């Protein structure tokens, strides 16, 4: 995940200076958070910071949390983590894919400090990895999108062609196609996680080309505003609820809810029961939430979407269930077969029916 910001290193340096204050009490558990964007981004980093505040609320005076925002992925991240560890952090959450190698490097130097890396796949004795099955929420979105589109064109704003984003496109397409065989996906790659002007332009272009549903995998609310201006277009909140755009255009959302996980892991450090784990939770464990489906959605579609949400949560339904073919027509999953986590984690192809190439 590249969320580089030319200027963020300066901000990070300023934040570090204020962080260097000595810890007030020795017996407190100190938890550090490294963020890739500003806490006010209204999406990804905002939700991580909400979870940090939940940790503080849960344990009160027993914990102390520190965070550094807008940390560029790369050497700067390593410096920030090292500084946190030197300042006495017991547990450090690094919340972007690009922090993977820096986390492993710093963890090797501080064997007594526990690390938690989001969305990565490299583990160590003191490094756990965790991520959320956002694609489960995408399946529900695809169902609503396919049911509600009148033009049969669904616009999709992608950020970067990485497995996480491609999983989302596939999951949404499979369900949309199921309820509406005529549906077509138009995919635009923005090559950014966060650029409101560019996201607004991408949404406008998709609407001009006939899309009446916009799905986004970028972090700002700009596409929502563009859809609102256009009128009869529906959207879904991304990472955060974006409820200010409900009931139209935002008809539902995927919400990242990290709080239960962060609280559980902090508790484990306090109790001394922390071990290195790999967690990939979805709707069932509450890590992925489906925002309230608004009244703009017809009642029977809403009921169907909620049934799908509950079936996924209960483990009765898997968004990637065969028969499914790859885009080139070769077989992927047989009838009734579900995709294994290994394949999903590295997913790099479209399913049959999606038009266009994945940029390599």
């Amino acid at each position, binding site marked *: 995940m590249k969320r580089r910001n030319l200027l963020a290193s300066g901000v990070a340096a300023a934040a570090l200076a204020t962080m260097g204050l000595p810890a007030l009490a020795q017996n407190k558990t100190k938890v550090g958070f490294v963020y890739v964007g500003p806490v006010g981004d209204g999406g990804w980093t905002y939700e991580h910071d909400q979870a940090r505040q939940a940790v503080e609320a849960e344990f009160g005076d027993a914990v102390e949390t520190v965070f550094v925002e807008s940390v560029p992925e790369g050497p700067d991240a390593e410096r920030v983590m090292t500084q946190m560890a030197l300042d006495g952090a017991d547990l450090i959450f690094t919340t972007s894919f690009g922090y993977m190698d820096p986390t492993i490097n710093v963890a090797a130097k501080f064997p007594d400090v526990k690390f938690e890396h989001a969305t990565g796949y490299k583990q160590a004795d003191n490094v756990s990895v965790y991520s959320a099955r956002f694609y489960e929420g995408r399946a529900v979105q695809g169902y609503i999108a396919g049911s509600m589109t009148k033009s049969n064109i669904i616009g999709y704003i992608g950020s970067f062609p990485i497995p996480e984003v491609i999983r989302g496109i596939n999951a949404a397409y499979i369900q949309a196609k199921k309820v509406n065989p005529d549906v077509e996906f138009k995919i635009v790659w923005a090559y*950014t996680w966060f650029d409101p*002007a560019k996201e607004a332009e991408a949404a406008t272009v998709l609407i001009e*080309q006939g899309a009446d549903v916009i799905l986004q995998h970028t972090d700002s609310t700009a596409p929502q*505003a563009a859809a609102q201006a256009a009128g009869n277009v529906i959207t879904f909140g991304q990472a955060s609820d974006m409820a*200010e755009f409900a009931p139209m255009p935002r008809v539902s959302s995927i919400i990242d809810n990290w709080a239960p996980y962060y609280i559980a892991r902090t508790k484990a450090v306090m109790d001394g029961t922390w071990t290195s784990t790999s967690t990939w939770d979805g709707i069932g464990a509450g890590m992925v939430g489906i925002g309230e489906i608004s009244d703009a959605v017809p009642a029977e579609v809403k009921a169907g979407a909620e049934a799908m949400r509950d079936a996924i949560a209960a483990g009765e339904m898997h968004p990637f269930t065969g028969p499914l073919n790859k885009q080139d027509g070769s077989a992927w999953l047989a009838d009734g077969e579900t995709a294994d986590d290994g394949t999903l984690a590295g997913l790099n192809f479209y399913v049959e029916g999606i038009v266009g190439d994945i940029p390599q």
Partner: protein
Amino acid sequence: MDLSSINPILLLASLMVAATPILLAAIGELVVERAGVLNLGVEGMMITGAVCGFAFATITGSPWLGFVAAALGGAALSLLFGVLTQYLLTNQVATGLALTLFGLGLSALIGQGYIGIKAPAFPDIHVPLLGDIPVIGPIIFQHDPMVYIGLALVAGTYWFLHKTRGGLILRAVGENHDAAHALGYKVIKVRLLAIMFGGACAGLGGAYLSLVRVPQWTEGMTAGAGWIALAIVVFAGWKPWRLLLGAYLFGGVTVLQLNLQAAGVAVPVEYLSMSPYLATIVVLVIMSSGRAPGSLGRIFHASR
């Protein structure tokens, strides 16, 4: 591939909107640089303008007052740069970069209470008669007023720089500040006015993003538009009309590449993504014969 899904009229119409923030910021910076000052803080002034404009527009309910506040906010921030570089003789490059960092932080602070709020609507004006012309009408004559104010600023800047005595003095200050000083012109006063004009224009450009283009406030929402404006000034050879061409070209190719992606054109997306930058650089370099103002970036003090 389905090129028929691209509507050329809508494409040209959205080109003008996409180009306006960069155009506004760039025309201000052009005047600053013609006066011999290099202000790299465009990004910081834009984002400050974006938040000031958004805040005032939501408080007062009037987008027009928002734009006025954005211009004032941008000008105030640029005045800080002006005082530092013109009176305290600080290095212009370093001060400009610092201004960008400061602007980003300040705007995040001011914007705390405005995240997730909607801006008041800023309706398009439908120019009577002209707006009804088929094809051309919707492309050119049915935009929000700021698009036309941007165009008017370019025309006004050209007229001022090349047809008035004030413009001649400003250019003289930029070309050779010692000579201008010897002739009795107030170098520092001229430069301060130019810097404030640049700040006001950058503020307007930022407010165009937060009030019209996006329209909402989010931290860091300019996302590099200020740097592109700076680059366009250089590639346009410090000439207003080429700057207009550069900004429209950049805006146009940006919108076009998204259209081509959505239409499923079989060109690798990476090439489409870099195309706005490439096209703008190539065209402006080919026609460039521009020369930087002689005193650009140099510190002036009357005793030297």
